[in-house]
């Protein structure tokens, strides 16, 4: 496979390194599925209840036998979603009820879009749901359609998600054979790029344009695909609707915490493999990591996604996994990713790799993002290599404040947050690196997968 350096960087001013190229070659998008383990914080799984992961996709027969049929009463479903307090599970945490209500009450033909693109390279929760519980996702989309008064629903994936696509296609065939009162289904596949999974990028793609985030003066729920009120919801959010619509808000709120109600899917990754778990009750990050096989507090935990936040390992171990507790540490649930940095790895080096990757993944539309993230990547790289000075970090902090909020999407904000959190979480390393004594022998290959950027935006 011939590989030109140019193909890796849409932004040539972002520094590249051999580690990035070598790891990208070894990363396989169709890697073996992640493991699914028992629920955390409680005894009864919800989304992941049913046949074990090894059984593959749950059939329609098993699904209906276990859960019963779904009554598609738009009014009852809307009320249940409103009373539940369900917020988006894609990272945005937007109240689902408000989004669907906006789509329902704005004039025009509403459209449901299930966002199963899961652009976070290490996140596996949405792919797992599509692969193992496709009927939860599809029931949920039908429920969303009923709530929004829509008769069409699109399930949007990234190209390369073969197992998820197959499971969904088979599930759709089962439903058609069973003549379920579903909306008209559409399956779409977009480019596998980090920002292509952003809601406005999905809308743009579905209109026939590039899968790049757009600057919108109106939310998609008001003005989306071809001007139609479009509710774009994460696949897990939609799966929750399937249960919520059947068993009601009070049952649904029986899981999770008062501040962050409902169960949540989490992906724990140590860079080698991923474990998907369902957190059904109050649980510390330590308990979640323990359930995934992490025996003791790691050096640090990356919380929320690649454009998330590092938190010190000991601190995160005892921090409860809910929005309020995480906010106190400067973190956020995001897409439910928990990335484990083992002792013996350099957090500054891994952060520099992540920032370089994320800078390259910019859609390249907004000056502050393209130029700001390139500068950030350079500074983080210099710091990782022991070439940075204290004044460089002061400049970095000043620039960070100037970049945030100035892109069409939240990508630059997230990357900036990651960089700043690295300076805080790894402050001991920062001091040594600034003194020209960077960590040595701490890993030639990136810890977390950094896939090759797919060319093109269609």
């Amino acid at each position: 496979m011939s590989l030109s350096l140019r193909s890796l960087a849409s932004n040539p001013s972002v520094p590249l390194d051999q580690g990035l190229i070598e790891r990208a070659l070894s990363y396989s998008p169709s890697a073996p599925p992640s493991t699914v383990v028992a629920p955390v914080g409680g005894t009864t799984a919800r989304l992941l209840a049913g046949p074990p992961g090894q059984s593959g996709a749950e059939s329609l027969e098993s699904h209906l036998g276990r859960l019963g049929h779904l009554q598609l009463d738009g009014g009852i479903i809307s009320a249940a979603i409103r009373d539940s307090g369900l917020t988006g599970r894609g990272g945005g945490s937007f109240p689902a009820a408000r989004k669907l209500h906006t789509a329902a009450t704005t004039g025009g033909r509403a459209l449901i879009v299930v966002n199963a693109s899961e652009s976070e390279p290490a996140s596996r929760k949405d792919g797992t749901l599509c692969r193992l519980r496709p009927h939860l996702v599809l029931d949920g989309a039908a429920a969303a359609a009923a709530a929004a008064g829509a008769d069409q629903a699109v399930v949007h994936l990234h190209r390369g998600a073969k197992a998820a696509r197959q499971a969904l296609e088979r599930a759709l065939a089962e439903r058609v054979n069973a003549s379920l009162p579903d909306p008209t289904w559409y399956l779409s596949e977009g480019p596998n790029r980090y920002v292509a999974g952003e809601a406005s990028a999905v809308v743009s793609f579905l209109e026939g344009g590039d899968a790049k985030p757009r600057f919108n003066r109106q939310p998609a729920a008001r003005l989306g695909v071809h001007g139609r009120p479009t509710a774009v919801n994460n696949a897990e959010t939609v799966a929750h609707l399937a249960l919520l619509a059947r068993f009601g808000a009070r049952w649904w709120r029986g899981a999770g915490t008062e501040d962050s109600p409902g169960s949540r899917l989490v992906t724990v990754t140590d860079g080698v493999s991923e474990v998907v778990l369902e957190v059904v009750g109050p649980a510390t990050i330590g308990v979640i990591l323990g359930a995934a096989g992490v025996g003791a507090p790691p050096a640090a935990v990356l919380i929320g996604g690649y454009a998330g936040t590092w938190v010190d390992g000991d601190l995160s171990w005892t921090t409860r996994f809910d929005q309020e507790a995480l906010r106190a540490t400067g973190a956020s649930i995001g897409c439910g990713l928990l990335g484990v940095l083992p002792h013996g790895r350099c957090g500054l080096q891994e952060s520099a790799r992540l920032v370089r990757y994320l800078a390259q993944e910019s859609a390249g539309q907004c000056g502050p993002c393209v130029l700001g993230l390139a500068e950030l990547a350079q500074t983080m790289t210099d710091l990782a290599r022991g070439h940075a000075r204290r004044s460089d970090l002061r400049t970095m902090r000043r620039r960070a404040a100037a970049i945030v909020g100035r892109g069409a999407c939240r990508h630059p904000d997230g990357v900036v947050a990651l960089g700043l959190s690295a300076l805080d979480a790894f402050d001991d390393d920062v001091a040594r690196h600034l003194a020209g004594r960077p960590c040595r022998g701490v890993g030639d290959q990136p810890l977390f997968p950094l896939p090759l950027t797919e060319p093109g935006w269609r």
Partner: protein
Amino acid sequence: MRIAIDPTRCHGHGICALFFSERIDLDEWGFAIVDDQPFAATEFGQRARRAAAACPRGALFVEEGL
């Protein structure tokens, strides 16, 4: 009234900052930093409309009735 920017359209020409310096500044790379806080149309309305009209990229827009 307020003025706001579509960041995907801004190419850093900088004309806007000359016409409406009370609300528009340029960052170190020349891209517009727009303060979108509301103002009275009678106070800055003319400046706002002029800045928006002068942008070669049509990146700025003025919203009235706020």
